[in-house]
């Protein structure tokens, strides 16, 4: 079996997917414009574009370019990165629940960043290093714990849930032991929010997204074969161990960088790849479609977080948890229907 035969799609399906791509791109652009235009100071769309091109009042430019644009750009990019991370882990665990939220990697990255904050630094480099280190340590721990008896079935998920609970307790202990001001900062950051997110994160986030996306594009054919089963993939020239480690590292880095920038935003990594799989009706994991779905999901969630109870603003992570809960209920009810 060639790689092409795994990923090739019939003409009708290809046309349908093109329509879905165009529709989702329009939705993404619509959400971005809404994010730039809606707010406590409602700014008409023409003024938004004027501000984006450096024209118009200085106050409008500050709000649109200085405050809202970083939030929209980073929201879309972070959503895409979370989705790509989730898609990678779901492929290498061959489990739709195999997202970094569930497996404990998010909690590990949070622990790493928390330790950096408690240590007195909130710089971009230190937070990123802490989150990446914590995420990789958590991932290594999970795979060590399941190594002896294999990662099959639900074992990996159960170990991940246990590690998430354990790290949750550790994080609480760190916050309680920290200086009150630091603990307060950490607690607010820990809710996961795009409110007030700083434009200084744009180069790092976009850079990580571009590099991660490129790496995934290179690995995509091998990952598609890997989904068919380890033995079959091996027989077709894939080296599963190396693939798993590479995918895991890329997934953790993508995840950890988002956590460093915005705190832990739950459920996008879990839900976006599965939603994309169903909407695009894809056999192999549709990475690009997952990224698009993640971007749409997070921009939509953030818009809700900012406007639902305005002027009170909810942490974006709270809205994604709500949406994630609905997704889980939908997924579990679907599983029950299939069993009957």
């Amino acid at each position, binding site marked *: 079996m060639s790689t092409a035969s795994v990923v090739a799609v019939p003409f009708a399906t290809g046309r349908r997917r093109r329509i879905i791509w165009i529709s989702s791109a329009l939705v993404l652009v619509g959400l971005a414009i809404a994010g730039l235009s809606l*707010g*406590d*100071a*409602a*700014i*008409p*769309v*023409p*003024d938004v574009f004027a501000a984006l091109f450096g024209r118009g*009042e*200085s*106050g*409008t430019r*500050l*709000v649109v370019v*200085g*405050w809202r644009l970083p939030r929209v750009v980073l929201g879309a990019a972070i959503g895409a990165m979370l989705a790509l991370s989730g898609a990678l882990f779901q492929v290498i665990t061959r489990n739709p629940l195999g997202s970094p939220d569930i497996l404990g990697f998010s909690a590990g990255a949070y622990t790493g960043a928390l330790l950096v904050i408690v240590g007195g630094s*909130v710089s971009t480099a230190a937070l990123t290093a802490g989150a990446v280190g914590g995420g990789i340590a958590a991932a290594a721990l999970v795979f060590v714990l399941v190594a002896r008896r294999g990662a099959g079935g639900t074992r990996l998920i159960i170990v991940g849930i246990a590690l998430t609970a354990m790290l949750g307790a550790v994080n609480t202990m760190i916050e*309680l*032991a*920290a*200086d*009150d*001001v630091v*603990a*307060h*900062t950490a*607690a*607010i950051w820990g809710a996961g*929010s795009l*409110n*007030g997110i*700083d434009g200084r994160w744009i180069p790092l986030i976009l850079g990580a997204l571009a590099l991660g996306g490129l790496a995934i594009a290179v690995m995509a054919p091998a990952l598609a074969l890997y989904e068919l089963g380890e033995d079959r993939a091996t027989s077709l020239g894939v080296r599963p161990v190396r693939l798993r480690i590479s995918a895991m590292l890329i997934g953790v880095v993508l995840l950890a960088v988002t956590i460093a920038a915005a705190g832990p935003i739950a459920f996008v990594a879990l839900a976006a790849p599965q939603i994309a799989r169903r909407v695009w009706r894809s056999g192999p994991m549709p990475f690009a479609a997952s990224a698009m779905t993640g971007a749409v999901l997070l921009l939509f969630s953030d818009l809700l977080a900012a406007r639902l109870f*305005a*002027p*009170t*603003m*909810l*942490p974006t992570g709270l809205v994604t948890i709500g949406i994630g809960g609905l997704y889980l209920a939908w997924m579990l009810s679907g599983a029950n229907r299939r069993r009957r």
Partner: protein
Amino acid sequence: MRPSPRLRAALAAAVIVPLVLTATACAPDADSSSDDGAASGDTVVVDSVYGEVTVPAAPERVAAISYDTPWQVMSLDLPVVAAIDYTQWIDGYTEDQQAYIADAAKVGSYGEVNFEALAGAAPDVIVGDAYEVDEATFTRLSEIAPTVIVGGDERGDWQSITEDLATALGAHDTWEEAKASYEARRDEVKEQYADVIAANTWANFSLGNEVGQFSIQLPSGSTGNLVVNEMGLTYGDGIPQDTDDGAGYVSLPLEQIGTVLDGVTVGLTYENPDGSKMPGIQDVIDSSLFQQLEIAKTDRVYGLVSNVTDYRTAEEWIDELVAKVLEPLSQ
């Protein structure tokens, strides 16, 4: 499509006006001898946690964005045009406090400032405390209006926090009056009720951080400072004197309440203006472990309404202490 004039006006009011005001406030002073404060553009440079800030000498539109800050500004006889949303805690505040913030724009919730709503309130100065405002938030707030972030030595250091705010808002005379009035009242009460004060051992407790816990105010907390350092009430031996985390209180498992409150003869706590207590505090009082304490058996648990954030509320707290506790105990 061109935006309507009304939209443009709204935008100008919401966004551009505060920026212009900021620019005006920060501009070099052309006529510093004028008595007409903000209207003439008089400015002063004040210290804040994140460095020196140039503010209007007599601000007219103050935004107070940290949890205790509006009440501290209230004690300086200045109005606020913006504050966070207090809806979920409103029952704990007096009618005067509720009326004070009734017309203020709501600019987000505790820990989540809505910058656009704040800009829409067109403040000419923003004040807050360092416990809730980090440097990145300060930087963004400074794009809206001159921002002064204050922070005392510890959470309950309302004396220096209010002094710094008074300096920043050009209200030092009002602050000194409130301080003098408070100190006179404090000394008068300490002298008048010296016997009752000396004859008892005191504690100020509240609900804990979690179910199954209770909390004790430390001498570094807002009310603990008043109880221990200002009024000189003897705190129970089992009560921690301080921790390093700066919170001003410590939350402990309910199992330890017997040890912590051992020997305490008067228990102080908080209550709402209508006389009810927060469910978490009532749960502590209703627990069987609490009911075994001497203060429960002798019915010497007193709820005080005043939230101590400044000299005025501290004086109100002392007045309440006299009326509800010291006077009855001296009978």
